[in-house]
Structures are given as C-alpha cells and as structure tokens.
C-alpha cells in the first residue's frame, strides 16, 4: 500500500512545509474494496456499493513505526474479516472511522485479488510504504 489520499497528502505537505498544524488520526480501520474498481487518490470507495462488506465490518488496525532508514512499516499487521460475501477483493482503504467516508488516509491494491465465497473468513496483511 503506497498511496495517500489527495486530501491527506495536502495535509501532510502543509504540516511538513508550512506552519499548518496536522490533525493526527486517532483511529484506523481497513475497508475492503472490490477488484472491479481502480483506486485513485481522489475517489474514496468506502461506504459505497464498491466496498466489500464483511459481517465483522471494517477491521481496526495499528501500524508499527516505520523502519529506521527506510520509508516503510517494519511489520505487516494482519486483519481478519468474517462472514465474507461472494466477492473479489482487489484493494483496501484506510479510514479513520468504522463506517462512512469521512477521512480516507491511505489506499492500495492487494498483491493479488482475493476471491471469497459466502461464509468465508479472510485474513490479509497490510504494509505501508512511501516511495
């Protein structure tokens, strides 16, 4: 996952290069997105028909600090979704809320699409990289 939402990118740029304060997120949730849509920095797909809705909902996630000397997270947290629908999941989006599209932080494609049948449990790992 190496893509930052455009609004979030602006906030990070402003925080880094101006005196504008950055509002730190206080919660992080993983939303699954159907493979039939191309993720972009301007269009959040969460809370639309494009979000693959598991019975357990979006998954809370916590990332470790980035690797010293490298712009990536040190380990890949695993998140689990239960009671999956019949779906092909192609990507994920990170939101600050368990529902809705209020603030999308990051997004990215999975390394390969995940095809699930009804009733499956799905576990994926997530890494974040700046390049």
């Amino acid at each position, binding site marked *: 996952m190496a893509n930052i939402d455009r609004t979030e990118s602006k906030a990070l740029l402003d925080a880094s290069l101006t005196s504008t304060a950055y509002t730190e997120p206080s919660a992080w949730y993983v939303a699954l997105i159907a493979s039939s849509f191309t993720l972009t920095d301007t269009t959040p797909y969460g809370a639309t028909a494009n979000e693959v809705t598991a019975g*357990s*909902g979006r*998954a809370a996630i916590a990332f470790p600090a980035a690797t010293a000397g490298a712009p990536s997270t040190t380990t890949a947290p695993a998140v689990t979704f239960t009671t999956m629908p019949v779906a092909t999941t192609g990507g994920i989006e990170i939101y600050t809320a368990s529902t809705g599209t209020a603030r999308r932080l990051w997004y990215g494609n999975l390394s390969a699409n995940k095809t699930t049948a009804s*009733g499956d*449990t799905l576990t994926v*790992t997530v890494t974040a990289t700046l390049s």
Partner: protein
Amino acid sequence: MANPIRNCMGCGTQDDHPRHVLGDGGGAGVDIFWHHDCHFRASGCEVCEAVSAEGLTGDELRAHIEDNDPGGAVAREINERQAPWTQNANLETQEA
C-alpha cells in the same frame, strides 16, 4: 452461482465448504485455504474455533455463518487487541 471448489491445507480435501482464506499465506506469496475446523485444530485460530464450535460443515455451516456471524465478535476482538488505540476509544465510549 455454485460455490468454488478449493482445497484445505489441513486435511487435503477439495470441496465447496466455507474456508478461512489466508491472503498470501502469511508472506508465502499465495493464498492458503483452510476448513475452519482444520485451521483451529492446526493453529488454534480463535476465529475458526468460534466458527466451527457447532460442529457443522458444508451448507449447514455456511447457513450458520450467514445467519449468525459466529466468528465476528472474535475477529473484532483480535483486530482490536492488536490495535492498542481501540482501548482508548472503548473507554471514551463507556464514559459517554
């Protein structure tokens, strides 16, 4: 639409029963499929323990999952256990 036929890493059986799909197999680069009961026996997976607790298989298990989401609470608890910030969020919810 027919449910897909997949193997099980635990017992080797190919059938259309629900699976725990481990995306990229924990870094192995390929998805790994387990029957829930096989995954619980092999690894102690708490989610699979909850899903398979009734001893159901096949279509009966799928119906049970679709009706009751038996692993949902456990999955949420595990995800939150690994995300310490949720503890603060829970406290705030309790105080509200």
